[in-house]
């Protein structure tokens, strides 16, 4: 049974006082079956991210909503802000699966993309 094990080191400069000590944190990891595991764990420790999936209102369409997603994970803290902003937006056909609806949403680096076609 694969069992990825090792150490991750992250350099973190302290900004509390002008000394600006450049130190680092060392984290032991174990128990992950593949290399994606420890990368995820590190991200959970430092800045947890999630994919956001939701729907957006449509106009001039037979369907009331279009399912959408972020093109990549965004930080957890930004999620509710993104949801709030999307509430006021509407899209109309024609849209194809994968089309970018909003690019670089709120500076997250992630685009909002269509999860299906909206042809009528």
């Amino acid at each position, binding site marked *: 049974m694969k069992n990825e094990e090792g150490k991750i080191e992250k350099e973190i400069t302290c900004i509390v006082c002008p000394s600006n000590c450049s130190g680092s944190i060392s984290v032991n990891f174990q128990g992950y079956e593949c290399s994606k595991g420890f990368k995820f764990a590190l991200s959970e420790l430092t800045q947890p991210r999630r994919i956001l999936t939701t729907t957006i*209102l449509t106009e001039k369409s037979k369907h009331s909503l279009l399912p959408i997603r972020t093109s990549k994970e965004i930080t957890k803290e930004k999620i509710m802000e993104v949801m709030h902003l999307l509430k006021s937006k509407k899209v109309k056909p024609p849209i194809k699966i994968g089309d970018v609806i909003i690019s670089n949403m709120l500076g997250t680096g992630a685009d909002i993309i269509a999860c*299906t076609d909206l042809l009528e």
Partner: protein
Amino acid sequence: MKQKKTELIVIGSGPAGLAAGIKAKESGVNDVVIIERAERIGGLLHQCIHNGFGLHYFGKDLTGPEFIHYFIKKASDLKLEMNLNTMVTSLSHENEMQRVIAQNSQEGVIEFISKAIILSMGCRERTRGAIHIPGTRPAGIFTAGTAQRFINVEGFIVGKEILILGSGDIGMIMARRMTLEGAQVKAVVEILPYCGGLVRNEIQCLRDFGIPLLLNHTVVEIHGRNRIEGVTIAKVDKDFQPIPGTFQQIKCDTLLLSVGLIPENELSRMAGIELDPISGGPVVDESMQTNIDGIFACGNVVHVHDLVDNVCLESEIAGISAAKYVLEREKRIEIPSIKLIAGDNVRYVVPQKITKQKEVTLYLRVKKPDKNVILRVGDDVYEKKLFYVRPSEMIAVNFRLEHFMKLKNGTKELKVNVKNFTS
């Protein structure tokens, strides 16, 4: 009534029906007819707007609509015949042909005759009535899937203060969905001592949003006259009986139920297909054929899956087998088949029997969670160590030719056991 003669009928066009129908067409069946009761093909994946689909099948993390889009496009490119808004009301097997009666408001009642059928009707949700929750019968009580349809397709929020009974995946997914849309989810209440869905969902749907998961608890009463106003919950003992002194009231305007999925086999029963009472679906062999020649089944109608990827893999086997049946009219050889028996800590195994010595994936679920176990098939035939086993996570066993080699002559039964290392 109208009569339509064809080669292969697929009942239900969710991922199972589409994967099976597409594979059958690719395997050489010219006339593949899909009968679907909804107004579009694709089944429930249209409303499953969350991601986590396709990790095995496509190697990508897709949302439900993205996953099914591939199959919908392929079905259309291959020109599978679609009968939408058409409900099958009868299924029977007569004179070596299959007979399906269906109806829609355009054509009325239609009789379909075909050589083979693939059953892919999926499953339905268990309701409040089925689990007898005492109390009044106000509005505001929905199965989680119904709420999902309202929110993600119709565009209506079903309530503002939500309580969810059952920690199955759909319940947890809806806990997150409702929170994202501005509702307040008070808690997810689970009668068992462990979570009913995938661990990944417990983390990303409940823990991420600080939604309490109350294990060993259930709803004992519903309050409210026209609209639900609240529930009484209680802790339960090992016999699932409410413990006096643990009752508490939770105010809510909506109750979502995620208390089990039941394979939809009304038609299977009608046709006289042998069902497995534990899996809830037809008894099938490694080619996904039921006890009736020419009738195959795949997907949630056979057993409720956790991952749509496995639904599609299983359904492709049904599609290939149905095509073989149609093209070669391969009669089932009555060779002594091997029965697969659910042993220690195993709830069920699908397929329930093997008739050919060829590679097959066995799917099973355990009864109770456990750690550090050995999964064994037969005495010395197959063995695998597993760190964790959970009822909510289906286990796949790849039974290969090398395992068949180990079978003693005349083996009639193979028991599948999951036992702790240390015992």
